[in-house]
Every structure is written in C-alpha cells, then in structure tokens.
C-alpha cells in the first residue's frame, strides 16, 4: 500500500482507537499507551509498501501493538516499577449497578499474567476468535483456548469473591 500524508492520517484515525485501546487495556496507563500507539503508527508508515491490503494492515497493527505492550510490561517489571498484576483486588464489594464495577473487572484482568491478559483483551475488546489471537501472538489455537479458559475461571473466582455472588 502507498499513501500520501492525508491518506495516512485517515488510516491513523481509522485504527487509532483499536491500537490505543489494546495498549491501554493491557497496561492501564494512558500516557504509555499513547506513546506506544504513536511508535507503532510511525513504524507502520515505513512498513506500508510491504502490506498488501487493509486487512493485512489491521492484522499487522494488532500484532505489533500486542507485542510492544507485552514487551513494555516485561521491561517495566524488570525495572521494578509498580507491576499491574501485583495490584490487589479492590477491597470494597461493589453492587451490580455500581459504576465502579467495570473498573473492578479491569483490575481483575490486570491481575492476570501478561500473555493471558493480552489474550483476554484481544478476545473481549477486539472480539477476536482464538485462531486469530493465535496468529497475532504466535501461539497455537489450542494454547489460546486453554489459557482463555483458565483465565476466565480465575476471573470468575475472583469476581465471585469480590461481589459475593456466583457469576455464570
């Protein structure tokens, strides 16, 4: 694909919420997510001649931002920054209509290990099928399915403890 400035700006606007959200939902840090998203779009510009179609661009963006976000989380962990998966579950027990419920769910997701967390983000934010997630993360579909299943079980258990009622 070859684009001029206006065409590239249009492409960025089309995909910016997807790219930013994958990083943001994974890292839960708005500034870092924007920084990573900008880096990925910069890299995209250089990569455009090798990408054959809009679907190829979308796949490439999802793949690169997912790996960038996980790499960033790993390096942040090595630098002993506040690790998101060490954040404790919320102490309060929000009711079903509590506006903080979604924030609680996001905190629970943040408690998952890196790869499992990215699988959950891609599955529920991007509505991707396990085989598509496998292609993006370079994992077999069976591995994606088993990690997703295990993550949901963990999340369900934590959510039940948090809310005090069973969740199907």
């Amino acid at each position, binding site marked *: 694909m*070859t*684009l*001029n*400035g206006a065409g*590239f*700006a249009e492409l*960025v*606007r089309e995909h*910016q*919420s*997807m790219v*930013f*959200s994958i990083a*943001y*939902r994974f890292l839960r840090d*708005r500034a870092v*997510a*924007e920084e990573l*998203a*900008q880096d990925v*779009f*910069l890299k995209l*510009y250089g990569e455009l*001649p090798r990408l054959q179609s809009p679907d190829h661009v979308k796949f490439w963006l999802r793949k690169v931002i997912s790996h960038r976000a996980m790499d960033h989380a790993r390096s942040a962990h090595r630098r002993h920054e506040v690790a998101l998966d060490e954040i404790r579950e919320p102490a309060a027990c929000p009711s079903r209509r509590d506006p903080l*419920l*979604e*924030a609680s*769910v*996001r905190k629970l*997701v943040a408690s998952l290990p890196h790869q499992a967390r990215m699988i*959950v*983000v891609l*599955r*529920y*934010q991007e*509505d991707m099928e396990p085989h598509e997630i496998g292609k993006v993360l370079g994992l077999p579909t069976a591995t994606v399915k088993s990690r997703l299943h295990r993550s*949901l079980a963990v*999340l*369900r258990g934590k*959510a039940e403890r948090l809310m005090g009622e069973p*969740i*199907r």
Partner: protein
Amino acid sequence: MNQMDEKLKRALRRRNPSTGFADRLLARMAVDGIDMTPRIERPKWSWPTLRWAAIVTVIAITVTGISYRVHVHRSQEAEARIAKQQVMLALRITGAKLRIARDKVKAVGGEQTTPGDTL
C-alpha cells in the same frame, strides 16, 4: 453469552486516545523529517538488474556465435578432407586405367610391326 463475557466486553470496550492523536503523530513525523509524499516503489527490474541481464545476454550471444563459427569451420575442414581423399582415389583409379590402356596400346603396336619394317 454468559455474565462474565458480558462484563468483560463492557469493561474492555475500545477507548479513544486523547484528542489530536493523529495530528500529533503527523507533527512528530514532520519533526523527524519523514517524507510524506507518495513513495514510488522501486521497480522489480531496476537498472543494476537490467545491466547485468544485458551483460549476460551479450556474453551468451558472443559465446554462441564463436561456437557456431568453430563448428562450421570444422565441418568445412572435414568435408574438404573427404573431397581430397575422393579426388586422390579418382586420380589413382584414372592412373591405373591409363597404365592398362598404355600397356594395351603397346601390345597392339608390337603385333602390327613386322620384322622387315625394322631396319
């Protein structure tokens, strides 16, 4: 879809980056000196490739031409050798025939000469 799926979908829905994300990106690209004019993809048959292809073609044509000329020359030499042998054979046959004829002429001449003729 179960409760957990719904909760996760709601909690993880997409968010937009801050306003002006794309403009900031383009400004950053301009500062970094990234050229935003459409790039012309380098053709597969670039000049160096064509040059090498032309050189190889010229060498191939030259070698083929020389080989053909050598082949023609050798064929002509072989034909000339065969022709020479045939001429030599023909000359030998002719020589042999002439000798036979001469001997016969001599023999006939000897019979016609009477003893009185030789004084």
